[in-house]
């Protein structure tokens, strides 16, 4: 038992994650071909615009379900929102935000871009602290819009009237999941602008712009898109329910900042917060790179059901820095 824990703690999380992500990526993108269907309300970008994905993205359904007249909230259709959230949670609790760090294909893609950049020896760019704080809010705005716009389709807004159905699934229209992932099916059809209506044109145009930004951004900035991702915002609401946890023993922390450096999301608190035990912030994707980068014995830990499965150790730190 001891040997196993030691082996795990000394392990390189980078390598483990790299392979895990590849497997997850294939399951999500091509899972359907092998009759894999993990679930319908996955807390990750298993985009139904794909040919045969191994599951379905929760956000798509959410947007559909909120296209709901107010009077039908207390009805079978209203209930569907709750059940879908429950299904979402059923998947979510196991991995918590690690869905982002380990499974999400959009996240994985961004990590691959980073790998390519590193290989080319090109430096990364970073946001300043002020900008970072501002940008962080965008995902909540997107999350709000993604619920409000569908409501606006089903209900009349004073002065505007009902929105046309062209406004449906508004987030999907700008989501890189729709435009980028199908490329892996050899399908480039989403990378076009739809001129059938003004709204569609604007949306598809925006989608293209986002895609362009996604490629360029993810190349220079680690996990560029994740800062804006409404999925991450939605997950964060439920982080307390997660069985997988990232915890910190602040008394052991020297504030050396090694974890902060390692963090692709640039989460400052991981180093500077020595008060809170639960250290998962809204941007965190639970990749656990920080745990691997921390040199203080047992300072950062990964717990599953309150049992430590991976933790920072001095020895592991040396093994990994060699």
């Amino acid at each position: 038992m001891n040997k196993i824990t030691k082996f795990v703690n000394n392990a390189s999380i980078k390598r483990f994650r790299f392979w895990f992500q590849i497997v997850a990526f294939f399951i999500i993108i091509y899972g359907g071909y092998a009759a894999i269907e993990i679930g319908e309300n996955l807390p990750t970008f298993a985009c139904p615009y794909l040919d045969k994905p191994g599951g379905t993205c929760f956000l798509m359904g959410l947007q559909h379900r909120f296209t709901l007249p107010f009077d039908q909230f207390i009805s079978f259709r209203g209930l569907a929102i709750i059940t879908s959230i429950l299904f979402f949670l059923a998947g979510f609790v196991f991995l918590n935000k690690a869905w982002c760090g380990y499974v999400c294909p959009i996240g994985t893609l961004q990590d691959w871009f980073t790998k390519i950049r590193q290989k080319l020896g090109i430096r990364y760019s970073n946001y300043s602290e002020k900008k970072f704080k501002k940008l962080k809010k965008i995902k909540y705005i997107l999350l709000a819009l993604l619920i409000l716009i569908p409501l606006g389709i089903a209900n009349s807004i004073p002065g505007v009237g009902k929105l046309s159905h062209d406004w449906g699934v508004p987030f999907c229209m700008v989501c890189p999941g729709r435009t980028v992932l199908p490329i892996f099916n050899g399908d480039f059809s989403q990378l076009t602008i739809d001129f059938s209506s003004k709204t569609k044109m604007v949306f598809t145009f925006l989608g293209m712009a986002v895609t362009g930004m996604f490629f360029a951004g993810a190349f220079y900035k680690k996990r560029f898109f994740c800062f804006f991702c409404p999925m991450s915002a939605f997950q964060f609401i439920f982080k307390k329910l997660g069985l997988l946890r990232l915890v910190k023993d602040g008394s052991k922390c020297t504030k050396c900042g090694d974890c902060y450096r390692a963090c692709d999301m640039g989460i400052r608190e991981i180093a500077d917060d020595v008060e809170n035990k639960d250290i998962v912030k809204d941007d965190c994707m639970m990749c656990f790179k920080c745990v691997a980068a921390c040199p203080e014995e047992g300072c950062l830990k990964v717990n599953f059901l309150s049992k430590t499965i991976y933790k920072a150790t001095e020895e592991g730190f040396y093994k990994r820095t060699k």
Partner: protein
Amino acid sequence: MEKERIEKVKKHIRTEAALEAGQVLKKITDNFPDNPEGMKYFYDLLSRQFSEEILPKNGKKLIGTMCVQVPDELILAAGAKPVRVCSGSFPYDNAGAEFMPAKTCSMIKAIMGLFQVEDFREKFDMLVIPTTCDQKKKTTEILKDMGYEAYSLAMPSRKDDDNSRYYWQNSVKEFAADLMKKTGNKITKESLKKAFDLKNEARYEFRRLFKLRMKNPAVIYGKDAFLIANAYFTDDIESWTAALKKLNDELEKKVEEGFSVANAKVPRFLFTGSPPIFPNMKIPLLVEEAGGLIAIDEVCSSSRLLYDMPSYDEQGLYDMIPAIADCYLKPCTCPCFVPNEERKDKISNLIDMFNIDGVIYQAFSGCQLYEMEQKLIGNFLMKKGVPMLYIESDYSPEDTGQLSTRVEAFIESIKMKKKSSAAKKEENKKDKK
């Protein structure tokens, strides 16, 4: 004539310094039984440094550093040898007192005395002095005036905000560039990686010693631990690491055999404040000769020297150099920073980890920062319920008599407390029965 006289004076100071070092070393070795075999390397090294050759000779260019904050990975990566020039020698302190203001701290005076008496102008390619405390800052200019190639490494006064962080990262980047110019060697990611590994190996052994010092009863005296760190100032990093590895192996074996230098009743102290630098081992020796044990310290000449470890995410200078910079700024607990809450946290942690009974706080007279922070640390410790002895002193041996009384009284009071709390525990046990 005048020249001859000056030479005579210099020779006299050198002799005195060697004498002082010899005496202190003799105390360190002779007044304590069972010095570890592995310590001999360090004793010899320090004794040689004062009797034969002050500066190491290994063909490499020398870069003098004047603070634990100077990232010596970069110096190593540039193919030069870092030498920390902070001095603890009283004769040099006296020499420096001749031209430095009376209220200057002993360490600065000793450094300045050293650079005045010994003409090192040709020896050092660069003397790197971070802008930590005011005295060090100004020293840079005086050294320049004396004809030295003194380099001021700009440090922020805060460490908790990103402005300071980037400011410092930039100043380290510039330092790397200037180093390349001065040494004529390029810092590449390969050479930096090698320097990283070298230093991390040293840190690894240092942390091993750190953990060995947690043992209660103790296997090594604090005075020896101070010397080990002191030797790092000038020694070749590889041989230093090898020697420490040998010592650690020896100590580990001793632990297994159940050997200890002090029984579990001996009061264990944490030493903090101004750094004791050989041969200024005045206070640590007073404590340990009076029957206390310095289990751990929180000073920049010893346990803070090699504790914090940098790690980088991407192998490229653009990530490695900022990684080094961060590691020298963020966890640093030097009182030149405001706020410096981390120092309290660190001390508090060490107290818990090392089973500490009391804290010895030394401030060099004239070192305003340590003198002033004393109050804050003192209040903090009072709340924590750990007694602290505050000593303001300098390199001169004049006050040894007074100090020994104070140190002894402190130790006695802790012993009494330990006794009475042990007695209470006994009683409680009896009551329960």
